[in-house]
């Protein structure tokens, strides 16, 4: 067992089962880990609360909706967004963790884009926040690459057979945001009003923007 590969193999056996020593019930398990880490000085309770507050109240899909609405009303911004999304999104001060390298993909009458992460749950946090449960589910991860039309039907989205579906499997640190088509009959709406039509699902590709009331 002096071979490096075998050593690493053993590594695998030893280091991925410690969690089974902890209480099985998930709420108690997390409470035990939190207490242990606080007492060891590895985490700080103010930080724990600050992180929760950030993603519950500050970083979420309304950020992405602002990006989309701006692209709808400002053709120059849209050009910058499609050319270098990371920089264009940074203009609105959305940067950093899980959005370090952004790509915006544009829906057209010919192409409909939809984003998935089959290997884990990669998702553009600075513009969409923490992903919803369904995005992280085995069902969405396993099926979207193979039968996107059936998956989209479950979301209530029936696409024309002539429309090409492009599925983006987020396997790297590139993060994808869908730029949905601006709904027809919205020429008279302001950027703020347009923003309220942009749904989270329309920016993942599993929905369309709402129609104006």
């Amino acid at each position, binding site marked *: 067992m002096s071979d490096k590969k075998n050593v690493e193999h053993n590594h695998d056996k030893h280091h991925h089962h*410690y969690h089974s020593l902890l209480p099985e019930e998930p709420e108690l*398990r997390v409470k035990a880990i939190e207490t*242990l880490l606080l007492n060891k000085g590895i985490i700080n309770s103010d930080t724990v609360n600050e992180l*929760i507050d950030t*993603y519950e109240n500050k970083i979420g899909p309304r950020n992405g909706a602002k990006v989309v609405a701006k692209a709808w009303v400002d053709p120059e911004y849209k050009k910058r967004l499609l050319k270098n999304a990371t920089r264009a999104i940074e203009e609105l001060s959305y940067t950093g963790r899980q959005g370090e390298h952004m790509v915006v993909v544009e829906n057209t009458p010919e192409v409909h884009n939809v984003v998935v992460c089959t290997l*884990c749950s990669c998702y553009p946090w600075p513009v969409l926040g923490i992903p919803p449960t369904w995005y992280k589910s085995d069902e969405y991860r396993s099926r979207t690459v193979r039968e996107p039309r059936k998956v989209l039907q479950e979301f209530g989205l029936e696409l024309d057979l002539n429309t*090409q579906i492009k599925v983006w499997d987020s396997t790297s640190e590139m993060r994808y945001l869908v730029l949905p088509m601006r709904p027809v009959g919205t020429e008279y709406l302001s950027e703020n009003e347009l923003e309220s039509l942009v749904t989270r699902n329309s920016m993942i590709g599993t929905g369309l923007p709402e129609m104006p009331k």
Partner: protein
Amino acid sequence: MTRIHDMGGRFGDGPIPLKKIDGKVVDDEPVFKTDWHAKAFSITVASASVGKWSIDKGRFFRESLPPKDYAKFDYYEKWSSALINLLVERELINREDLIDITKKAKENNLKVSQVTDEHQDVLKAKDVAITLGRGGPSAREVLHSPKFRVGQEVRTINYSPNKNIIGGHTRLPIYARGKKGTVILHHKGHVLPDASAHDLGESPEHLYTVEFLSTELWGEKDGNQKDSICIDLWESYLI
């Protein structure tokens, strides 16, 4: 050999778990469905400041959970369990700590003590916004010129590309191995997860987005003629 997380294209998972009212999708889920979800998330993010594992190593530890656990665990159970395994591997906690805290938990005796010696790298509340805003970019300079260009036809290798570790981390999904596609984007150099996940350095390589026809991946009968799947792939995954 496969790992359980690599599930793209698998059959049998059933309908997407969506909330629907009168057949219409309702998107009103809270950010964290329970307090313990919120805690599992935040203690994992906070611990990384001290543990200093790469994002790739974090992913590798989640996908290395025993398949039976991976399949039955809720998303944040995977996070918290992988976190414990990472902390043990980093020698920040040990087996005795886990046995001791579990005993206390079962006796309903979990107490937070006054900590006098916080770890020097502990993430402070005042630094949260700046740390998240900075993130951890994976773009790196690669000195050699790219082997492939946009528009070029390529083929993926048909085995696990991790050269160093048997059963090691990789980001080439099984469903896309040995398949023919076209390079549609070139993202320049990025950290190679296959190395970074195992503390073997960053070994940056050119990264491309390759578009595969649905029929190439699933067969003429199964795939839709019109549709395609775009996957980000490192240079060493391609021939």
